[in-house]
């Protein structure tokens, strides 16, 4: 909640000057605090509010110390001295903001946060999906009972006759059907289930007041299948020129042209993979920082 009222007319002292090393050390401290806050599923706006306060406090303290310098400057040693007086980043875990409001009687230390169950289920469903896919391949390629052919009919002099009993694949057996219904069908629902459970997990973690953790895993669960599908589409689009080259390659006769086309296709394939990698990297980084 932010009021749009005009800023406080504080006297504005000269800004503090920090050299690159000191600024980098300060940033590292703030990053370490942010990591702890992120681990405790703090929303980005909350993290930002806490980090702004912390940075202002550190800079205020350094400014007070550097009051005699013109312009005020602070060294790395002075920053270390200020940080030594302050709470270490781990302290933000103990005082997680989303802990329930304290009672006037005081409260015991909060129990350690538990891994969110929806998130866990979503991730297990991915494993189930893999298992279901493997089971389907097995069921559709495994012969449970080979075909039985009539005896004494020569294969040598004519076409093979119709079998007395046809080949029975594993998926056609009663146990194959049972596996399909109990294992494969629910497993193949993973793209919907895992994505949904990931989002539910994220909401539950944010609403859990720090009692549940696993935000990164929940994000992984929520985005695993959308990213996988996105990658398939991306690779299909990026590999289209390579397929065109393949068609062209099948029509040329000169070896020299074939080699040229092969080289171009290889370069395109490398570029396509690099582009997919960079797009994934950007998408995943943005999701992690959200």
């Amino acid at each position, binding site marked *: *909640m*932010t009021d749009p009222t005009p800023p406080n007319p504080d006297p504005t002292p000269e800004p503090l000057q920090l050299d690159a090393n000191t600024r980098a050390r300060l940033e590292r401290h703030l990053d370490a605090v942010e990591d702890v806050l992120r681990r405790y599923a703090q929303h980005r706006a909350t993290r930002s509010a806490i980090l702004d306060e912390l940075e*202002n406090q550190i800079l205020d303290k350094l400014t007070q110390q550097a009051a005699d310098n013109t312009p005020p400057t602070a060294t790395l040693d002075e920053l270390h001295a200020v940080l030594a007086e302050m709470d270490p980043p781990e302290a933000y875990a103990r005082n997680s903001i989303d802990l329930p409001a*304290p009672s006037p009687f005081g409260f015991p230390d909060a129990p350690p946060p538990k891994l969110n169950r929806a998130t866990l289920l979503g991730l297990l469903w991915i494993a189930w999906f893999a298992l279901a896919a493997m089971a389907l391949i097995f069921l559709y390629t495994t012969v449970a009972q080979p075909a039985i052919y009539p005896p004494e009919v020569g294969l040598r002099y004519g076409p093979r006759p119709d079998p007395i009993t046809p080949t029975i694949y594993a998926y056609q057996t009663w146990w194959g059907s049972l596996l399909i219904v109990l294992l494969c069908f629910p497993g193949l629902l993973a793209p919907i289930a895992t994505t949904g459970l990931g989002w539910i997990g994220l909401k539950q973690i944010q609403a859990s007041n720090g009692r549940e953790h696993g935000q990164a895993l929940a994000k992984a669960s929520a985005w695993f299948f959308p990213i996988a599908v996105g990658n398939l589409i991306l690779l299909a689009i990026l590999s289209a020129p390579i397929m065109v080259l393949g068609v062209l390659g099948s029509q040329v006769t000169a070896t020299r042209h074939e080699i040229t086309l092969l080289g171009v296709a290889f370069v395109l394939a490398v570029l396509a993979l690099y582009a997919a990698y960079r797009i994934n990297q950007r998408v995943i980084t943005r999701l992690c920082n959200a």
Partner: protein
Amino acid sequence: MKSWSAQLRKGLVELAVLAALRDQEAYGYQLLQTLNQLPAFQLTESTVYPLLARLTKDRLVSVRVGPSPHGPPRRYYRLTPAGQQHLHDMKSHWQQLTQSLNQLLDSHPDPAP
């Protein structure tokens, strides 16, 4: 005794922060300094800033963003009407509690150590 005292203090931080913001707005570090002037409260930033963020989220305090001389914008906190009401309720509860406790403590004089 030390643990009990620390937990009691921890439990009263919210009341102290709301009380410190009752009459005036303050930014985080300013509020921390105000609270640390009280001998019984030795609070640190890892307690107060997350609490301010939670109070903001609960709409008990509002935030006005103003310029800072050297860092990110300063956030000035002020009690909202809901915060005033919450403070009033907490204060009443606290006063009842201390009154009852004092009554109990006064009726039983300290045993000799």
